[in-house]
């Protein structure tokens, strides 16, 4: 191999690009050429460093020196000083606000990275279909330690002390849950892993199962040891074929290696895991519904108590946790409760995986410590809003959650703050919306989901959500009246207050939260009959600006209902009575003469 060249990596992430990192790269190239260094020094564009607020970011390799806030005018100094003379440009280094210390390398700055991978620790690192790689990355070490050196109560104490709360939505303390299941005596108990990830837009559980299945298997065995269960069940969506295949492989390998099955590692503890399939019912994310589904029944929830920890699968004490929760267990055992509880906020410990989606640049999975702000998530890790549009809202918690707005951008995200803001953690879907999204339509979209996913058992959820959806439809069609908003709110409150399970108790959240945060948008729909975002077709009016229209007749020819009239070379007119608002004319017009009012 040839001798290493110097390479200057310029962040080309959206955040830095917005801050003109392109110009920085160009200036650097010019300087390199000016100094005839093109054979030894190269400029490379990279993706986002996750340091968007410090951008543009430039990293010089192999020295591993990171410069922040680099302007095109700094290029000369970087080349002259650093590249030619080997002297680091101190003024462009990152300064730790607390200590005043200048940090040089990406390594030193790693503590400032917004993301922290605990759950996703092995995703993308190990071959999920090769247990040896998992073992090399500490899999089953925690199980070994638990089985040989700890009592169940000691393990439960660690989990309790770690402050871990269920990642499936409710945020119930995991250690406490295990303790209750442990205390209920029975001849048989079950450990269930809820992998029926149903929130549209959330896919962290699938990623963990696809990337690091042993993390879940090991944690289930640990849980089994604690609650004295010898059987584990993973309830997984049938729509996740890859995750299913990898889980099956992982289970088979773990059995082959004696890390699951009879008498694990000769400790006398036996634990076996089976897979059960979901079949497309969101409500089965609810524990009791999930258990009924595993029993071959319709996935209808039942009243709690009794909780699954008392009478669950086959009437036996059952502990249900979701994938992400289980994935936290082994690191907690290995690194201790104190370590885990040092991460996060007072009442929400550890990290949370979010699935960023919607109008955001860096769509994908991120894992951040609890307490990270929405601003950090969206504008730094997420790289900001697509196409430079304005941030409007972020929906968390999926169809059960609510939306966070501009005013929540600096709120640290944790279980309690989200609830206080009228939303919820849910499973961690985070959908970003921009100025083009109509919040009434967004609420309607979520209701559409709930209506389809309601199991139909209890009246408020079965009928109430349908009525909510109808009323929102009515409003988006411009047929609403101001009094409808009060009715909407009352229906929401009653549905929340009276529904049988979590689905109905939270399904009105998207409506309530948009009603709260975007009241004026609702009012515009019911009073002025306008959709401020220009999304509601029935509230739009296509209009030709006479000054821009050259009379090319293209619009008139494309109109499917002949709503456009006009002489050739004369401005055309749209008859709003006939127009069906299909938008074909607007697409066809080359002169930007057609607008939506």
């Amino acid at each position: 191999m040839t001798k290493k060249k110097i390479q200057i990596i310029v962040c080309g992430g959206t955040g830095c690009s917005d801050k003109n990192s392109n110009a920085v790269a160009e200036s650097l190239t010019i300087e390199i050429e000016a100094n005839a260094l093109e054979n030894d020094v190269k400029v490379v564009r990279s993706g986002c460093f996750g340091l968007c607020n410090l951008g543009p970011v430039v990293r010089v390799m192999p020295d591993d020196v990171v410069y922040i806030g680099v302007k095109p005018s700094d290029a000369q100094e970087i080349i002259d000083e650093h590249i030619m003379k080997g002297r680091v440009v101190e003024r462009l280094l990152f300064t730790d606000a607390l200590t005043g210390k200048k940090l040089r390398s990406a390594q030193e700055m790693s503590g400032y990275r917004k993301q922290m991978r605990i759950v996703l620790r092995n995703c993308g690192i190990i071959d999920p279909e090769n247990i040896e790689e998992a073992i090399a990355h500490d899999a089953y070490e925690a199980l070994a330690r638990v089985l040989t050196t700890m009592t169940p109560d000691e393990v439960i104490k660690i989990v309790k002390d770690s402050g871990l709360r269920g990642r499936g939505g409710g945020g119930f303390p995991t250690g406490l849950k295990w303790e209750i299941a442990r205390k209920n005596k029975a001849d048989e108990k079950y450990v269930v892993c809820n992998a029926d990830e149903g929130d549209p837009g959330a896919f962290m559980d699938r990623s963990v199962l696809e990337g690091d299945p042993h993390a879940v298997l090991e944690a289930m065995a640990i849980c089994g040891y604690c609650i004295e269960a010898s059987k584990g069940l993973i309830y997984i969506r049938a729509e996740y074929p890859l995750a299913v295949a990898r889980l099956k492989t992982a289970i088979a390998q773990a059995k082959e290696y004696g890390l699951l099955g009879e008498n694990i590692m000769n400790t006398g503890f036996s634990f076996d895991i089976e897979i059960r399939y979901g079949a497309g019912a969101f409500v089965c994310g609810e524990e009791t519904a999930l258990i009924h589904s595993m029993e071959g029944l319709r996935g209808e929830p039942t009243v709690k108590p009794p909780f699954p920890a008392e009478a669950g699968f086959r009437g036996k004490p059952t502990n249900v946790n979701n994938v992400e929760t289980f994935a936290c267990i082994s690191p907690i055992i290995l690194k201790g409760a104190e370590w885990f509880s040092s991460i996060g906020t007072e009442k929400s410990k550890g990290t949370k995986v979010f699935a960023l989606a919607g109008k955001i640049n860096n769509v994908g999975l991120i894992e951040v410590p609890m307490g990270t702000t929405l601003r950090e998530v969206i504008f730094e890790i997420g790289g900001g809003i697509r196409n430079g549009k304005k941030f409007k809202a972020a929906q968390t918690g999926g169809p059960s959650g609510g939306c966070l707005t501009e005013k929540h951008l600096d709120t640290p995200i944790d279980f309690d703050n989200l609830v206080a803001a009228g939303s919820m953690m849910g499973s961690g879907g985070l959908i970003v919306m921009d100025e083009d999204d109509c919040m009434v339509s967004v609420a309607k979209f979520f209701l559409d989901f709930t209506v389809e996913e309601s199991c139909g058992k209890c009246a408020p959820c079965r009928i109430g959500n349908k009525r909510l959806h109808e009323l929102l439809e009515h409003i988006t069609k411009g047929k609403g009246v101001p009094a409808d908003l009060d009715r909407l709110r009352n229906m929401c409150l009653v549905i929340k207050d009276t529904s049988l399970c979590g689905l109905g108790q939270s399904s009105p959240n998207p409506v309530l939260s948009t009603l709260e945060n975007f009241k004026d948008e609702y009012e515009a729909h019911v009073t002025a009959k306008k959709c401020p975002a220009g999304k509601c077709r029935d509230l739009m009016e296509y209009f030709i600006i006479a000054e821009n229209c050259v009379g090319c007749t293209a619009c008139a020819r494309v109109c499917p209902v002949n709503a456009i009239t006009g002489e050739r070379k004369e401005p055309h007119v749209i008859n709003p009575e006939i127009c069906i608002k299909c938008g074909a004319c607007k697409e066809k017009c080359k002169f930007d003469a057609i607008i939506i009012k």
Partner: protein
Amino acid sequence: MSSIKIELRQEDVSKIKEICASFNNDPQELINVLHKCQEHFGYLPAEVQEVISTELNVPVAKIYGVVTFYSFFTMTPRGKHPISICMGTACYVRGAEKVLEEFKKELGLQVGQTTPDGKFSLSSLRCVGACGLAPVVMIGDKTYGRVAPDDVRNILKEYENY
């Protein structure tokens, strides 16, 4: 109460019995049995449910209740190339609705229908978890990402000769 005759081929009956037996004819395994049967037959016609009912000793009404509860199960045969449009939130905000409309228009189908020649069927589903590629369309096992309405015709063309 009249007796009903159910017609199935011997090999189909044997297959269903075999599937049920592989789950020890345990009624609690009903959903797994239904999955396997749907995998084999492509859908779950009444006849298949009747045989399962006998094997697992579960009233057929209850089986039908389960089949109609879960959106993954279907009683209508799907097309040779089942088209599923993801209607998850991420896909929705990135325009999945328009893509669905385009498929409906191109195929002349409503959601849940199959073309008369049995080639395509159209369904919508909730989040395949490929949100980074939104809007996402699945045809059979193949995933299409970042689909725009204009791509629909070309996508369908790929299946012209299959």
